[in-house]
């Protein structure tokens, strides 16, 4: 596998030597929608590096209560605790929008981190950026209106795909945002009323990206800038699509 053929930002940011520690054990993997990367408190086998698609890290309770804690795409890796060889997480992690990527067995990841002090650096930076994203999700949930939270969420998805068309159901949006399903209908119509999106059965089309950013106001943008500050400006390859942001 040639590093320049992967779109994953973490893999691309590794030196040749560090990537060489992982390369023999990386395998390609298809990750369809609802593909489960991790179940709560269940032994993990692999660390995943998406090339495409969008996944959700969800906090769950045994009574079924769930909400999205964070979102990831080709800018990151999951589950993040595996960098130290940890084999369980309390989260449910699954793909929302289908994609593909690479994965490596957890113990091979741990062995590689033991052999290089520099390998871990981009991983740890990403873990920090992911924590920032989660903390701003908490702020958005506490202080912003449903339609702004939805705008923010649409922007974050849009950052992670190469199209203006998001294929996602209203039911799934309700689940991820922690709101009741009918609230999604109304919130989508507010955004449509402002001509920011078009919403049909099963799809949301981003019509006015800048308008969505204004509408989301301060709820969107800071984690993305943090990503750029710590992990950005690594790629100068012309054949890579503009890097998605956290």
């Amino acid at each position: 596998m040639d590093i320049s053929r992967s779109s994953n930002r973490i893999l691309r940011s590794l030196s040749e030597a560090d990537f060489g520690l992982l390369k023999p054990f990386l395998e390609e993997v298809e990750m369809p929608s609802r593909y489960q990367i991790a179940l709560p408190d269940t032994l993990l086998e692999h660390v995943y590096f998406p090339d495409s698609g969008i996944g959700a890290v969800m906090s769950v309770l045994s009574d079924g209560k769930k909400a999205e804690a964070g979102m990831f795409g080709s800018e990151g890796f999951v589950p993040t605790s595996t960098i130290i060889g940890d084999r369980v997480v309390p989260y449910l992690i699954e793909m929302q929008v289908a994609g593909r990527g690479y994965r490596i067995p957890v113990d091979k990841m741990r062995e590689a981190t033991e052999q290089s002090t520099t390998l871990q650096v981009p991983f740890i930076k990403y873990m920090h950026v992911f924590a920032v994203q989660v903390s701003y999700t908490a702020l958005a949930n506490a202080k912003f209106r449903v339609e702004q939270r939805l705008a923010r969420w649409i922007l974050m998805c849009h950052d992670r795909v190469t199209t203006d068309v998001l294929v996602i159901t209203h039911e799934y949006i309700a689940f991820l945002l922690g709101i009741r399903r009918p609230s999604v209908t109304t919130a989508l119509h507010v955004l449509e009323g402002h001509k920011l999106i078009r919403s049909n059965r099963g799809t949301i089309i981003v019509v006015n990206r800048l308008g969505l950013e204004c509408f989301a106001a301060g709820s969107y943008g800071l984690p993305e800038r943090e990503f750029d500050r710590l992990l950005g400006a690594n790629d100068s390859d012309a054949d890579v699509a503009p890097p998605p942001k956290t």
Partner: protein
Amino acid sequence: MLFYFNVRSDRSYDVDEEGIELPSLDAARREAIKSAREMVAELILHNQRIDGMRFEITDGTGALLVTVPFKDVIILD
């Protein structure tokens, strides 16, 4: 059964294009009540009018099955 949770207000009629799969009309009505509570809370928080807003639940043919006014979910006494 698929139930469509359309929202009518003085100014607009938001059509639910996806519907929600529920076992009965009574389950749909209960879902509407829970959703209305969530939406009323947001509206009150942002100093907006609730008067007139209601769920109009329809079936696949568009027939109106039940109406749930938002003001019915507010307990005032």
